[in-house]
């Protein structure tokens, strides 16, 4: 497929489309799912609205039980929404079984058919679609090549490693060339080294096929490195949708800030607020500019929580925060300093280790300077 010139052009066109805002591949409107009835009812999804663009690598990120897998299973057709609609490629898929939706799933447990060889597994979808035998064979060979599994074609799942099973599962889901590939924490069963390798592999496959990927994970690092866009979920709601950079640098609320990366929270008072910028007074009395989430207009004089990433702060002669080092944890490339602030509360900062210099010992008094644009006001 990668060798095929037209496919390549199409792929590039799709990716350009995605980058430019693109056309919608999946539209989700007011999707709600309630499990159980009466007093036992549990709301797994609550009025979810979401648009996944054509050809993008979209990640649903959140802790276990946040509803991300339920959302994925509803797109696949395994669960029915209580309310709301799902449109794939502009078509409402309500009432369509999973066998009639142009999406394929890579399962967390891979769910490879144990009684079929790798090649038979990969060809299953095409056989069910009634494609001619020759076409199936050609496609299977192509897929085996794509995931570099040619030597294992005639092995059964029990006779290949976890990473190889993962590749077969991927190839099986890609073989019918679905509009959307749904991946349900596909890397969680792999060890760290293999997982890194597969992350790269997944990105490569997505680039080569140009298929829209919807990826579910609870691993924030995985989400940040792989995605075009991320939706952060908690308790059945989508809290923020954006590029990895936007999510990390400009978290919308405390949950997003806390869930992704290490974070420092400070209580502050709003001095002035204009559009998406504000000035706030920190507990130490210092007044600093901070960015504000879209649509949130903090009232002057109101109390807000601001967030500072550990790498957006540094030790300095003169700064906004003053405290005493409680603990210094050595990480090789850098040292994490846990500082107790004089105004109360703790602050963690990351200090790069240089040759010949020494990080402050516990007990040392330090002054911390927050980088320009390092402050962000959170939604209450």
């Amino acid at each position, binding site marked *: 497929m990668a060798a095929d010139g037209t496919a390549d052009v199409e792929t590039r066109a799709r990716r350009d489309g995605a980058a430019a805002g693109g056309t919608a591949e999946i539209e989700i409107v007011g999707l709600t799912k309630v499990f159980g009835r009466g007093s036992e009812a549990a709301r797994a999804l609550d009025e979810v609205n979401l648009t996944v663009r054509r050809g993008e690598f979209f990640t649903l990120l959140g802790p276990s039980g946040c509803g991300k897998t339920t959302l994925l299973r509803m797109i*696949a*057709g*395994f669960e029915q929404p209580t309310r709301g609609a799902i449109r794939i490629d502009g078509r409402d898929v309500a009432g369509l*079984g*999973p*066998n*009639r939706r142009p*999406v*394929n*799933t890579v*399962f967390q*447990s891979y*769910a*490879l*058919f*144990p*009684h079929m060889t790798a090649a038979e597994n990969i060809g*299953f*979808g095409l056989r*069910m*679609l009634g494609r001619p035998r020759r076409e199936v064979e050609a496609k299977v060979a192509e897929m085996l090549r794509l995931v570099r599994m040619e030597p294992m074609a005639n092995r*059964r*799942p*029990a006779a290949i490693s976890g990473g190889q099973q993962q590749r077969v599962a991927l190839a*099986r*889901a890609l073989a*019918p060339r679905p509009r959307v590939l749904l991946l349900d924490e596909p890397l969680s069963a792999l060890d760290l080294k293999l997982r890194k390798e597969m992350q790269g592999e997944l990105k490569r496959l997505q680039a080569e096929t140009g298929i829209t990927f919807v990826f579910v994970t609870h691993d924030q690092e995985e989400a940040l490195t792989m995605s075009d866009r991320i939706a952060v979920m908690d308790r059945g709601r989508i809290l923020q949708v954006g590029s990895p950079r936007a999510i990390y640098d400009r978290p919308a609320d405390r949950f997003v800030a806390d869930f992704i990366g290490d974070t420092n929270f400070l209580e502050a008072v709003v001095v002035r607020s204009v559009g998406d910028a504000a000035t706030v007074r920190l507990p130490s009395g210092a007044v600093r500019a901070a960015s504000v989430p879209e649509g949130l207009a903090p009232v002057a004089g109101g109390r807000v929580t601001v967030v500072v990433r550990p790498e957006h702060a540094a030790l300095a002669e003169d700064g906004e925060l003053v405290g005493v080092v409680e603990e210094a944890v050595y990480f090789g490339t850098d040292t994490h300093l846990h500082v107790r602030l004089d105004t109360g509360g703790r602050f963690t900062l990351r200090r790069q280790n240089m040759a010949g210099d020494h990080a402050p010992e516990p007990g040392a008094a330090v002054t911390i300077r927050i980088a320009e644009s390092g402050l962000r006001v959170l939604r209450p």
Partner: protein
Amino acid sequence: MTTVRERLQADAAPPDAEAAAALAAGRRRWLLLAPALVVLVLAASGPLLVVLAYSFLTPGTFGGVRWELSAEGWFRVFFARDIFDPETVRLNHAHASIFWRSVSLAFQTTVICALLGFPTAWFIANRPERTRAVWLFVITIPFWTNLLIRTFAIQEVIRNEGLVNSVLMALGLIQAPIQMLYTDFAILVGMAYVFLPLMVLPLYAAMDRLDPRLLEAAYDLYASRVRVLWHVVLPLVKPGLIAGSILVFIPSIGAYVTPRVLGGGRNLMLANLIELQFGQGRNWPLGAALAVTLLVIVLFALFVYLRFASKDEDPRRA
């Protein structure tokens, strides 16, 4: 008791005492086993050897045997002599037809049980966790109630004056009762009824272990319901289906009560033929030879099953 002491001693004892401890443990194990083994050898396994021996003896005049070696019993299993001319030998058609009926009825019973049992096991395996045990209980209750009572119950339902004929006549579907009792059909119905749970239980066990993700994966890859059943469910529960078939086939081919009660003594199966030789037939060696033949058929079925089951590695464990 043995195991506990054995392990404790093994823990405490110095290495040179290990052999002695193992020896003592072994002795205790055989002591515990001895009573059960004695009973089993005396009243289960030993008598089987005696049956084999009897099949090579000469029938006594009023039952029993005379202690003279003879192959006549075995000869008669398969061949018959002309009444007027004992030198004229032909195939024993009566026996052949009874063999055939037994194998055929046992096979049909197995098929009927599979056709009814498969959907039933599927139904139970897909109940919510809490109610599943209850459904299993409901299916096993008839199995644990007296076989004779159940056969009697079937007899009452399919008699000429029974429930089925009464209902059909009341509905005006038939004018005269259909003769069902004392036919091969009655035997078939009875055996299928009696042995059905033996099919459901292993099938259920296999289905219970089936990963639902595999079904989802198949649907996700565009399979229809029928194709999911054929390409995914069936291959994966095959071991359960084979086990269930063996469990139904073996008691069916050796069935005695059902053909006697529902076949009315006219439609014999192997077990009835064997009984006949020890009763009116007064030909114990022939009866013994027939019993050994039945045992061989059963052991052959078991052997095939074991070969089948071990060769076809359990795919669900993959």
